[in-house]
């Protein structure tokens, strides 16, 4: 009897692994194909039946990309905007979230409802006026335009408020008796405790900032002020022979590897962060 259930278990696990591996193949295959194509010649890429393995690895495709587009600028712009947005948004949102979660003040609920309602509005509704505001401020085609609207977030405030509310109240009461003011409580006690929440938000902001397409496409018009995502979209131009897939794939690889590396190293935090939002 027990032998049989044992064998069943092995069989069941095997089946599970088989299914998971099959699924994983579907998830990973496009990336493998991306890398393989990026190392082929244009001729190889359009052969029928397809060449799976390039005969000689065309690393030139990668250098060619750098000649065509200011990819170093893309990297710098993307990294800078992402870092500033992450630090700025986490700081500002945690300040506001702390106040909402821990201080009683008149108008709190009304203000919080205003924050929440921003969450419901689709991005398209903001876009045109945001663009016009950037124009008024003279920020079009600057990195400032990419960064500033991203410093403020209703989502981030909401997420961190939920987190702060789950922390025990006793700590700050003790701190209050010690004569700490709210900023000190926030800074010295709450922030360290809220680390998982802060990291979660940081990861979300980084992911969105890195991959955002529409806003950079609209506000920044010169290639040296573009981000990777918009720069990649630029590659698929009309009448520019840009159905040259080896080059396009090389560009894609260049644009996505940093986030993938970050993800692999911070996987645990990614998962925790998503879990945090998922469990309301």
């Amino acid at each position, binding site marked *: 009897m027990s032998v049989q259930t044992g064998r069943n278990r092995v069989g069941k696990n095997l089946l599970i692994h088989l299914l998971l591996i099959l699924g994983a193949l579907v998830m990973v295959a496009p990336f493998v194909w991306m890398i393989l194509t990026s190392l082929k010649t244009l001729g190889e890429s359009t052969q029928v039946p397809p060449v799976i393995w390039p005969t000689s690895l065309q690393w030139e495709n990668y250098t060619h990309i750098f000649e065509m587009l200011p990819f170093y600028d893309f990297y710098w712009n993307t990294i800078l905007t992402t870092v500033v947005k992450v630090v700025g948004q986490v700081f500002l949102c945690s300040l506001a979230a702390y106040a909402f979660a821990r201080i009683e003040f008149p108008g709190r609920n009304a203000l919080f409802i205003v924050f929440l309602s921003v969450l419901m509005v689709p991005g398209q509704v*903001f876009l045109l006026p945001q663009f016009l505001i950037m124009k008024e401020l003279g920020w079009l085609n600057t990195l400032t335009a990419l960064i500033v609207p991203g410093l403020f977030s209703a989502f981030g*405030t909401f997420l961190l408020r939920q987190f702060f509310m789950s922390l025990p109240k006793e700590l700050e009461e003790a701190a209050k008796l010690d004569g700490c003011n709210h900023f000190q409580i926030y800074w010295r006690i709450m922030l360290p405790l809220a680390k998982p929440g802060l990291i979660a938000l940081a990861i979300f902001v980084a992911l969105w900032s890195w991959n955002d397409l529409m806003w950079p496409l609209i506000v920044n018009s010169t290639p040296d002020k573009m981000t990777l995502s918009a720069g990649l979209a630029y590659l698929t131009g009309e009448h520019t022979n840009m159905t040259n897939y080896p080059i396009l794939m090389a560009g894609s690889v260049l644009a996505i590897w940093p986030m993938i590396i970050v993800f692999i190293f911070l996987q645990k935090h990614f998962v925790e962060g998503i879990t945090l939002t998922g469990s309301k």
Partner: protein
Amino acid sequence: MSSQLQPEVHAAARPKPAKPLNRMKRSDWLWAYLMIAPTLLGLGLFYIWPVVQTIYLSFTKWGGFGKYKWTGVDNYVLLFQDPNLWIALKNTLIYTVLAVPASIAISILIAVLLNQKIKGISFYRTLYFLPVVTMAAAVAMVWRWLYNADYGLINYLLGTVGIQGPRWISDPDIALYAVIIVAVWSSIGYNMVIFLAGLQGIPRSYYEAAEIDGAGPVRMFFTITLPLLTPSIFFVSITSLIGAFQVFDLIYLMIGKLGNPAAESTQTVAYLFFTNGFESGNGGYAAAVAVVLLVLILIVTAIQMKMQKKWVHYD
């Protein structure tokens, strides 16, 4: 969500005893306003004011380069007569109705498999999660290439088993579904993580008890797993729906090309917004599209909130 709002509401109305306390309260308030101020101002300028502005703009007509004049409801009248709006609404609806449930179903399946105490969970999780950290621009590009009917890998593989693959991204009857497949592919990892967390919150004892009652795995899934997972499903469906209504990147990059016969049958509401607002300079018209989108999302979210009581089990 709102239940946590309640307890503190009445706290402020408690009788205020002594003066020093009052002063302390004042300083509390001051701190609160100070801490909220930056975000509030930023949201006000960049998010709340734009909503008002968009509604205003939707009643204007744009001349060249951002000059506009008030034209009343003209844009809305034109918009509702525009066959493109109805096509876009239909496409958005098809996209939403197919992509969201498909992604949820597949994610749950994978989460359940991963939850079976097997080895290598984090390995699988990494692989399934890759598309989530990849920018839409790159995702669209590689799939365009895979889908290419002449040189693409997919049709070649189908060919080896004797199937003549379709023109995935240029056949008007197929293209939208091709995009949906990609959308599902790239969202599975994210949803799976949420479901996995939900699954891990279900006490083992429930399953043990059911096992004693002689329940098989399928029955356990439908009587225990699924009902207890409903809060996660609710969360995922509400966020995915809002996202699906705004789908733009994938379609713009995979289909949006001069002379693609599938362009019309894949345009969505957000796509209509972009082409009018930023390609043909019809800002006012685009604003009207955005307002329609806003109303649509509010309605759908309201319906979901109402419905949640019927099917979501909070314990």
